[in-house]
């Protein structure tokens, strides 16, 4: 009824294979992009941009990266935080060596460094699977974290042991550093995230994505139909780490402004993993749903008591937020164990046949 595709005929193979084959979806995506690119920067305040949207987008991007590996290829990774760190530190090193090159180029290039490291740590995935692979990637997490803390070369021998975002410009406008306005930073992050999400979506809908999903569903069967496991798995590690690395570089340069090794600790890996579990494994849009729950919902919960005027101490609000977030996560997972993306699918299906039950 609301979501009916009757009358939308596809006359070409390309139309049939489009990412958004239904007209309503295309309008919906266009509307979301319009809101994101025009309405939010035009009307959003500093708090909305700085504290809500920029971190939300960056976490979503990292979740998309991890989803390619864990959701689509079935390789569980606990090293996301460290791979984000690789991106961030690579970007910092490249930027300080060649400050004359545009920062955006370095942010993208740092993804390649992260991809290389990801491939190296992805090698064991050929032999081990499931929880055992999770432990192997855990080793990557600890090893890389140790490097960030122990190799002074990575931080250019700073006494503080931290990396700092410099003042870099694009078309004469500051994009990183303290002088960059939230709107500029938001638009840069949004553009990168939108492009990356589009690329990721294309990959998973094409030959490579199917190859990954075949490996995920049963790797021996995939091997029998001619998929080379080594290449498929390493490719998944490379693409995933690339996206995650870019997210890491964005996190330091366009969100935090400075970062200690502690920033990329195991907690970050878990946060990203929870985002994809709650959002839905094997779904690009699920990454955005998950980031909404994990990042935006706690902020809303924290903002609620002062808004309605409840006199609660700051620490109490924080503890309550922590508890309520936990409870809501459990509620969502009980309601739909396959994540919010599946819930969204079901809702779409229901709207399609409404008012009939099937």
């Amino acid at each position: 009824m609301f979501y009916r595709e009757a009358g939308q005929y596809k006359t070409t193979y390309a139309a049939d294979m489009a990412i958004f084959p239904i007209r309503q979806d295309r309008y919906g995506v266009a509307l979301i992009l319009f809101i994101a690119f025009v309405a939010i920067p035009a009307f959003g305040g500093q708090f909305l941009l700085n504290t809500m949207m920029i971190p939300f987008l960056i976490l979503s991007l990292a979740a998309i990266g991890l989803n390619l590996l864990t959701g689509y290829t079935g390789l569980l990774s606990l090293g996301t935080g460290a791979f984000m760190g690789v991106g961030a530190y690579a970007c910092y090193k490249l930027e300080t060596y060649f400050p004359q090159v545009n920062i955006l180029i370095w942010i993208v290039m740092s993804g390649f460094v992260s991809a290389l490291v990801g491939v190296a740590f992805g090698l064991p995935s050929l032999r081990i699977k499931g929880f055992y692979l999770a432990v192997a990637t855990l080793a990557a997490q600890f090893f890389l974290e140790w490097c960030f803390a122990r190799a002074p070369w990575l931080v250019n021998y700073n006494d503080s042991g931290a990396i700092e975002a410099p003042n870099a410009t694009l078309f004469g406008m500051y994009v990183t550093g303290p002088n960059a306005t939230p709107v500029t930073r938001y638009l840069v992050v949004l553009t990168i995230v939108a492009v990356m999400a589009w690329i990721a979506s294309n990959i998973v809908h094409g030959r490579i994505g199917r190859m990954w999903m075949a490996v995920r569903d049963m790797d021996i069967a995939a091997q029998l139909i001619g998929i080379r496991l080594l290449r498929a798995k390493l490719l998944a590690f490379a693409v995933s780490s690339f996206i995650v690395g870019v997210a890491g570089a964005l996190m330091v340069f366009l969100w935090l402004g400075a970062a200690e090794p502690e920033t990329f600790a195991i907690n970050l890996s878990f946060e990203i993993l929870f985002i994809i579990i709650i959002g839905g494994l094997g779904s690009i849009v699920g990454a955005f749903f998950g980031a909404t729950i994990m990042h935006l919902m706690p902020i809303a919960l924290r903002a609620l008591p002062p808004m309605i005027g409840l006199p609660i101490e700051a620490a109490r609000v924080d503890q309550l937020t922590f508890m309520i977030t936990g409870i809501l996560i459990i509620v969502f997972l009980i309601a739909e164990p396959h994540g919010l993306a599946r819930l969204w699918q079901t809702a779409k299906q229901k709207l399609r046949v409404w008012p009939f039950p099937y």
Partner: protein
Amino acid sequence: MKSTLLKSAAGALALSLALPAGAAFADDSIYVPLFTYRTGPFAGSGTPIADGMHDYLTMLNERDGGVGGVKLVVDECETGYDTKKGLECYDTVKPKNPVIVNPWSTGITLSLIPKAAVDKIPILSMAYGLSASAKGDIFPWIFNPPATYWDGLSEILKYAGGGSIDALKGKTIGYLYFDAGFGKEPIPLFQALAKEVGFNLKLYPVAAADMQNQSSKWLDIRRDKPDVLVMYGWGAMNPTAIKEAVKAEFPMDKFVSIWWPNDTDAASAGDGTKGFKELNWHGTGTDYPALADIQKLVVDKGKSQTPKDEVGSVLYNRGVYNSVLIAEAIAEAQKITGKKVVTGEDVRRGLENLNLDEARFKALGLDGFAGPLKTTCFDHNSHSATFIQQWDGSKWVKVSDLIGPDTSRVQPLLDEAAMTYAQKNAGWPNRSEVCDNK
């Protein structure tokens, strides 16, 4: 029963509706946000500090009606010692025109340092943060009085050497530190001194994840038998290290810490802790009129979350000292500008003209609470002298005279670090802020 409940609920609602609307945006008040952490792995250190900061400012409101007749709006934001949440707090408080920000975390401080000059909000990172920010000519918006971690290290070593670092020649000195920016900062100075003076330096890093699991480090310490063990710890690392030291039967009087362990940290290991030493720069206990006022006007009246026996502990009084600096900076800003309701820019000027001598402390009701502190446009730290206090099993006892930093060795490092910071952050602004020093 039911009606009282209803009434009190209605009262609470009315009060809460009136409070934020009236207080936060009024023209006749000064907004002072406090970044605190009463949750997370560092809550043990963070809670008494938060209480101390909150209670002193509340006491000023109750007793004097604020500073210079202007009420202070004290607003806590919970950071959990997490940089991301700290930045969230910063963005939350920024629209309310804060006159000063106290990050209480080195990580948050590092993220905020470049923003301070742009947003015109001074940062007071009291004895933590970036040591180099003591240089006011390069960091006009950052203040880290009364001493840097480098000062603290030189003071501990001076004490260990009986007044001169050179006396440590040939000795073995252990350094047990929190393996993050804060603990690593003194290492270059430590290594330079080890080379120059000729002592043997042993490093024992403790990673944040291993704060409560230090047994392997203590095996090393037992093997190396350092003549002095210096500790730079924070949060759960301090009580754990003290307990491990007792277990390892390390001679406590050779165990000297920087200024962060609290009374409860020392007390947690029982009698074995007797003799444990730490650096400090202010009094402990409640024997000061101002602290008596806090007890009378704030704690006893239930206007804070402070448990009664916490008042007077090292970290509580540290929080009080932090708030003394805030209040003095506001008062000084009012004096300089002649305005009653000051802004962040005014308070920056106030912070550059702090002059807390003996007489001023006495006037504040804190007679003999701390040594003199004087900041200038170039010196945002004052590099004040500190003293060593020793735990006697139930309280801290001052066991040394005031020890000043080894300026000749620390100052060049500071100059160099500040220069490097400015160079590495290309486009670091040259100082253009006014200077009110006479």
